[in-house]
């Protein structure tokens, strides 16, 4: 019951997902649309419980056991609860149950997202520019012909995106575009065939109950 029922359910849902693609009849399509866009979205929304629950548990344990840098776990937990409170009660556009405003200072969820989450995320990812460049400097060596090709392709694509260089060598953006459109497409497409076969076999293994990692290895 604990293993067989979820496996049968998984297979049944897989057949529904597959069959709906091949039957263009209105009834089947409406059923599939409702299932995909409403029912599964509702179930999926609840899955956030697992993610947030595990974050709260992780940081709570860290504070309890006073592990290294445990003080910062308070920052995560307090900001998580505070943001969720502001968002849930203040509404997504600040028109919720409680007005998130003190005098002229507004702190609704949209303002927090634009002025805190976006700057933090964008800066975090922009740091990767530095780390990627420094890693590439250490790792890339023109040791053989293949490595030289990789370097040349990377340099052309990078330089073509710099306006002064592109103005200096007008043909460079076209060469960069050609590299992205032709050899890059050929390599990616070749790899995509292999990746797709992997996706297909994994999907079939899940549906047929061969791949049981999601059952906790049972």
């Amino acid at each position, binding site marked *: 019951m604990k293993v067989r029922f979820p496996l049968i359910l998984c297979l049944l*849902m897989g057949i529904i997902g597959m069959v*709906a693609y091949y039957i263009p009849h209105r009834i089947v399509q409406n059923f599939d649309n409702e299932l995909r866009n409403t029912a599964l979205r*509702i179930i999926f929304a609840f899955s956030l419980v697992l993610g947030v629950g595990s974050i709260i548990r992780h940081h709570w344990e860290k504070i309890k056991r006073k592990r290294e840098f445990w003080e910062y776990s308070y920052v995560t937990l307090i900001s998580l609860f505070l943001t969720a409170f502001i968002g849930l009660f203040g509404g997504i556009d600040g028109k919720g149950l409680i007005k998130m405003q003190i005098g002229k200072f507004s702190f609704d969820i949209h303002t927090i997202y634009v002025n805190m989450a976006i700057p933090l995320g964008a800066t975090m990812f922009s740091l990767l520019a530095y780390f990627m460049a420094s890693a590439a400097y250490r790792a890339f060596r023109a040791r053989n012909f293949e490595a030289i*090709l990789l370097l040349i392709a990377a340099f052309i694509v990078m330089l073509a995106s710099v306006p002064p260089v592109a103005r200096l060598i007008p043909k460079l953006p076209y060469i960069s575009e050609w590299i992205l459109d032709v050899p890059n497409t050929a390599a990616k497409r070749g*790899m995509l065939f292999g990746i797709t076969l992997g996706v297909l076999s994994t999907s079939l293994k899940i549906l047929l109950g061969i791949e049981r990692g999601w059952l906790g290895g049972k």
Partner: protein
Amino acid sequence: MSTDIWVWIAAILTLGIFSFLYKDNPFYRFCEHLFVGITNGYAITFYWHRILVPSLIKPVSQGEKLYLLIFAFIGALYFTRFIPRLSWLVRIPIAFVLGYGAGAAIPRTIETSIIEQAKATILQRSNFLNLFDAISSIIIFFGVIATIIYFFFSTERKGILKHLAYSGIIFIMLGFGASFGYTVMARISLLIGRLTFLLRDWLGIIK
């Protein structure tokens, strides 16, 4: 210099993350933990206001689509993950989402990632309308075959197979190089965005 308090908050947080370039420090760790907290708090809000309220709470409270309560109950089974005696029930909502996702992926992946890609690779009369397109199409056709052969390990690489596999490496290297350059430039544009924010919106040094 800006007088908006939110611009100041955004600028201080930006500097906090940039401070990692010097070394790991308390200011960076504070910003990093704040980021995790805020994004998860925002995710809760987003799922509530954008999915649960319009798809479940609104229609059900108006007496419509009452069958959605069954799916809400199935979704609520995720909570059993935290009750050891009932934790196996978490497999039911996972089976719903995973099963449908895996089943729906099969025909769609075959269509988009195999049939459509093969159609775009095969040489047709329309590929030979001008010399440039013809050469590019032949290179793509040859490159796809060579790349596939590079990943073909079922037989020993001898003769033509060896040469084709080597050509595959050349295409893969060009592809990886282009992807690397493209990714670096995307990150650089983010960096330019952040620097523009600091110098223009916060300090007002540039216009």
